[in-house]
């Protein structure tokens, strides 16, 4: 063809653009089907895991529907009658419902209040130990309780709370009469939170210690030169240094406090301390599993999950506003 030089170059450019567009189109066409086949091993390997998550995590999500039904096992999800918010109303209509709810909230808040700072303080103290050997020993011993079954821990607790057990020995030492720790509603919360700290202290501290090891030692050296004492160093270097870790763990913890280890609560409940020990988690177990009242149990469980989620989002938002650290 007889085209002038400039026009020829323009044509070439048009051709080039056309070619890459064409290539992209062809790429997209060879996208899903062919690429899946190309990577068939990878896909096959992922398949079992997908199945697991699908069946055991996603399928139960449909349980949400049960909360709004008068669920009957024989009729199943699609056959049971719908009752709207009836299940929720039943729960809160019952005076015990509000008590259960408040118990759950209080227990969760107390666990957070006492249980969250403890590992941090422990990690800070541990970090101060100069002898690396001693530190390792203390650390190893400290997270041993985490591996012990909750049943065993409650068993130990019961043994220590006996009439002639250690706790009462201490009580007598202070001139108090014998206390029935497991029967008294007033003692449930201290025992629960206290044993929770005993169980989780060393374990949670691991994460904080890892974060602490990431702080630049030069900062400490500089502070030393400026004449900072231990306390000042801790506040101005250490804490800000592990602040991101603290905030993230805080956000995650807040999301979980309402679930507050209901299994341990179940183990520590007695007919006489239900006033403080009856929480949503154990109620769901009793109503749902024992009494087969699935609809109501699912409903209150759902409510708890939603509230926990809201807590999670709120804490994340707060954290982002106040400290610039957040989960997302």
């Amino acid at each position, binding site marked *: 063809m007889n085209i002038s030089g400039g026009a020829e170059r323009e044509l070439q450019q048009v051709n080039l653009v056309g070619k890459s567009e064409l290539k992209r189109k062809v790429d997209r066409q060879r996208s899903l089907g062919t690429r899946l086949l190309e990577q068939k091993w990878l896909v096959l390997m*992922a398949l079992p895991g997908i199945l697991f998550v699908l069946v055991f995590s996603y399928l*139960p999500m449909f349980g949400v529907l049960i909360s709004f039904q008068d669920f009957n096992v024989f009729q199943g999800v699609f056959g049971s009658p719908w009752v709207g918010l009836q299940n929720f109303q039943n729960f809160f209509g019952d005076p015990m419902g509000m008590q259960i709810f408040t118990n759950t909230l209080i227990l969760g808040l107390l666990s957070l209040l006492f249980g969250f700072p403890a590992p941090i303080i422990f990690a800070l103290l541990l970090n101060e130990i100069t002898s690396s050997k001693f530190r390792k020993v203390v650390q190893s011993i400290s997270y041993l309780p985490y591996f012990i079954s909750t049943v065993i821990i409650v*068993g130990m607790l019961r043994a220590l709370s006996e009439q002639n057990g250690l706790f009462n020995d201490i009580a007598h030492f202070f001139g108090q009469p014998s206390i029935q720790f497991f029967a008294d509603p007033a003692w449930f919360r201290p025992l629960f939170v206290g044993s929770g700290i005993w169980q989780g202290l060393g374990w949670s501290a691991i994460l904080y210690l890892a974060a602490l090891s990431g702080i630049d030692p030069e900062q400490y050296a500089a502070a030393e030169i400026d004449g900072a004492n231990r306390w000042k160093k801790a506040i101005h270097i250490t804490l800000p240094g592990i602040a991101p870790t603290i905030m993230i763990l805080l956000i995650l913890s807040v999301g979980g406090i309402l679930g507050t280890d209901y299994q341990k609560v179940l183990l520590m409940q007695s007919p006489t301390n239900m006033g403080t020990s009856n929480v949503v988690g154990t109620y769901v177990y009793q109503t749902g599993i024992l009494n087969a009242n699935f609809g109501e149990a699912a409903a209150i469980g759902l409510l708890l999950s939603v509230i926990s989620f809201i807590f999670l989002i709120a804490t994340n938002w707060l954290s982002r506003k106040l400290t610039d650290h957040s989960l997302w």
Partner: protein
Amino acid sequence: MVFIIVVMIYPLLHVFAMSLSSTAQMDLGNITVYPLGFDTEGYKFIINNPQFWNSYKNTLLYVVVGTPISLLFTSLIAYPLAMKEFVLRKPLSIFLAITLFFNGGLIPTYLVIQSLGLINTIWALVLPGAVTTFNVIIYRTVFQSIPIEMRESAFMDGANDLTILFRIYMPLSKALLATFGLFSIVGIWNDWFDPLIYFNNVTMYPIALYLEQMIVQGNFTQGAGGNLAADAINNLLVSPVTIQMAVVVVAMLPVLILYPFAQRYFTKGILIGAIKS
């Protein structure tokens, strides 16, 4: 610090001491950290109790089946996710991330297991927790740190992804597997609640549940001892607490023994996971 050590260890010593003490001394409440009136009645009871051995056997079975399953399937799905060119990488990641936030809850999970006909089977215990998003993420992070060249050269040698996972990646991730293997073992070993709700048959009880029946429910007959225990206690031959403590010691023993060995891998594994995350 010393106080902390004391606080951590004291209960364990106390329990051990009680398991070996005579009833008379127990009633007097004199026991602190070592046995008084040395008496092995509690342990004798255990040894003679078939239900105890059965529970122990069950627990071992559940652990031996459950832990490899969890390690295997979590690795299988983490590997593709660690490969940048994986077709389904983004959608799959989102698919998994959602489960971090939304959870069916106890009742719906129970109903799913029930409708699958898994009640009273080992699978109710072992399958639900086999693949969790949190674990997958950590596995993926560890796999990502393995140089991609290894995979490429393995391809040239004619391997496919499956072989690469088993022959290269997993051997290189020993700390990871040891750590999560330990978590899985301890998790299954100590689990009493799932067996409680999924098993109707006493012969399937693991040791943790056996313990729960004895300690928390004070139930020495049905789940725990048969009438042997009830008789022994009624005859004041043995204090129930002694038996309980003996069972506690025996139930804890494997974990306590495993602990120092696993520890080595363990601190490394956690640090890797924590820092990388």
